[in-house]
């Protein structure tokens, strides 16, 4: 019985083999990313310096570390949440071997639809005075619904037209932003009901004299945990890896490949809608230029988090850590007072480094697998003889 697993690993074309190989490697990748984050945090704590802070409640002053301040960490978590949530969705698409370039535009369209609704029922809108008990859930439903619908359309394009997702989502990237532009007539929509902004998404808690906004953080963790569980433990979640590992083999094994693809694109749209909802609540405005260029940030977060653009690999936790890594670098540039002009170079270098690390890991994995297969063959031969 002990020899079953090595034999399966040796059959590289079998559907699911990539999955089996991936899990161990992914854990290693996340451990590596956690190490990078800890190292970054350590460097920022040491070199970021400290400052005198006055407690708003007591009035007393004390010296605090610039990076480890609750305010700074809270802000870092908030900034990460938008990208991390979308990166989790994008990771699902990437695992199937696809790509979603329309993430930023779906985010924009979902935000604009939600913003127009909230503006209508806002304090200066014609529907002012409507009950927040249905306006707030309505706004959430509009954001999530718009995002999911956009994602579903992407999926239908990919599956129905059998065109490479790069082309389909490149087209819808322009279409969705164009629709947002036509709808808004280039105007920003503001003035939303307080129950949605300060009462929900921007709900503030004071902790050790710092103002923290826990809702974006809670949603980010919730989305990551749910998606992580789905990818790893749900049968339909495992199908995503199978399709990304070997689409042809999955098809011949009877897996519903098209349905799997539709699901991941719809999920990607849904996460863009969730991020749009948080953005609306936190910033209290939306216009047709919202989320411009986010697609690259989101894909970068997923790739840094270990998702392979060739498919078959990636995790929700990795996407979150990837987004956090990029945001920590941004934060570090500000804390260390590095010239802002260098930020793009630094972030670009980190992405290249992550891919390089991935390649090195891949080579090491292949060597490990070859060794395991050799030893399994030898064991089989010994048993046979």
């Amino acid at each position, binding site marked *: 019985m002990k020899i079953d697993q090595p034999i399966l690993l040796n059959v590289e074309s079998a559907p699911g083999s990539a999955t089996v190989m991936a899990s161990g490697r992914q854990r290693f990748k996340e451990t590596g990313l956690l190490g990078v984050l800890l190292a970054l945090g350590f460097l920022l704590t040491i070199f970021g310096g400290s400052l005198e802070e006055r407690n708003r409640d007591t009035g007393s002053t004390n010296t605090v570390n610039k990076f480890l301040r609750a305010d700074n960490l809270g*802000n870092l978590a908030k900034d990460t949440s938008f990208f991390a949530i979308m990166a989790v969705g994008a990771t699902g698409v990437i695992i199937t071997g696809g790509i979603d370039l329309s993430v930023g535009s779906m985010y924009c369209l979902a935000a604009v639809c939600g913003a127009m609704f909230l503006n209508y029922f806002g304090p200066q809108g014609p529907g002012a005075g409507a009950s927040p008990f249905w306006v707030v859930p309505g706004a959430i439903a509009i954001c999530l619904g718009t995002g999911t619908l956009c994602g579903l359309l992407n999926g239908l394009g990919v599956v129905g037209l059998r065109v490479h997702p790069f082309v389909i989502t490149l087209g819808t990237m322009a279409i969705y932003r164009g629709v947002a532009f036509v709808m808004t*007539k280039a105007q920003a929509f*503001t003035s939303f009901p307080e129950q949605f*902004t300060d009462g929900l998404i921007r709900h503030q808690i004071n902790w050790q004299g710092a103002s923290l906004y826990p809702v974006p953080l809670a949603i980010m963790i919730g989305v990551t945990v749910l998606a992580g569980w789905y990818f790893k433990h749900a049968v339909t979640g495992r199908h995503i890896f199978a399709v990304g590992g070997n689409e042809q083999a999955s098809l011949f094994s009877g897996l519903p490949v098209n349905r799997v693809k539709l699901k991941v694109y719809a999920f990607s749209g849904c996460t863009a809608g969730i991020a749009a909802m948080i953005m609306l609540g936190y910033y209290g*405005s939306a216009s047709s*230029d919202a989320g411009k260029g986010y697609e690259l940030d989101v894909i970068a977060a997923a790739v840094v988090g270990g998702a392979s653009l060739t498919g078959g690999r990636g995790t929700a936790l990795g996407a979150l850590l990837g987004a956090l890594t990029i945001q920590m670098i941004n934060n570090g540039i500000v804390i260390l007072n590095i010239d*802002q*002009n260098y930020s793009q170079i630094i972030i670009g270098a980190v992405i290249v480094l992550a891919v390089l690390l991935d390649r090195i890991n891949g080579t090491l994995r292949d060597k490990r697998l070859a060794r395991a297969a050799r030893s399994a063959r030898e064991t089989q031969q010994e048993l046979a003889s």
Partner: protein
Amino acid sequence: METAAKISMKTKQFLASLTVIYLAALFVTGCEQKKAGPVANDAAGSTPKKTEYTFALVAKSQSNPVFQAARTGAEDAAVELGKKLGVKITVLWRTPNEDDAQQQVNFIEQLVLQGVDGISVSCSEAETLTPAIDKAVEQGVQVMCFDSDAPASQRFCYYGTDDLECGHTIMRELAAVLGPGKHVVAIPGGNQNARNIRNRIKGALDEATNYPNISIRGVYYSKEVPQDAAAKIEEVQTANPDIDGWAMVGSWSLFTDALLKWEPGKVKIVAMDALPAELPYVQKAVVAKLFAQQTYQWGWQSVELLTEKVIEGRNPPAIEYSPLIPVTQTNLDEFAQNWKKWLRE
């Protein structure tokens, strides 16, 4: 056979001569027409020669509301000046959805082919636009710049904000609001490539040297998208709580309401522009003073200056700066009313 060959040769020679004469005539006519453009304009005097004129405005971006006000201004000016001069002035609006200098070049080339009488352009990138402007002028179309200039081009004039002075004004006012004592100030930078923002930053930094009590923590760039700009400012302020003043030479972050939660007066802010979304910041005293650019006038003056040059044959001054309008709590309501007109609400 010989005679037939001779006749055929003569016919060929005749046809060739006709072709040469035709081509020569075409060439001469073309040259005449090319010369005729500017001459006709120069000789136009104060009375219009045509009854219908078409001017085009090429702004930077459709998604920026300041240009919507400029469009309204241009359309209003076309109606009023047309009535005054007894001509029909049509305004064409050709603006990319987002900042895109290359698309602006395409629009200018198309407009020249379309035969417009004049173009007013706000340059996303002066260097990219200069050859297109020069080519249009050489083809007899009068071109001016508004909001963002292309000084090395053959445009006949520029109308808009003096960006360098604008930076000086923002920093001077912020210094006055901050008062005596040591202060740390930051500047949001927007897009590093935008010439007007670069000039404003330069002006602000130059002005800051006059105040030894003010130290500049840094210039912080971000996408010129409200949410991104607000996120950057929050990040910088959180990482540097000793910053007590923001010289907002660009105020994209104020198009959101994220900074409205700042304690009024704790961090002093003086900012450019006074768009509808920014006005609550003054109302709640989070922002001490806004400096509005005359965005409606960008459009109005564009049509007026093109009318002067193309229809009346006069030469306006090469550079005309529009002053900034300070907006504080005292004139806030009055200024808010303008936007209703400018956005045709």
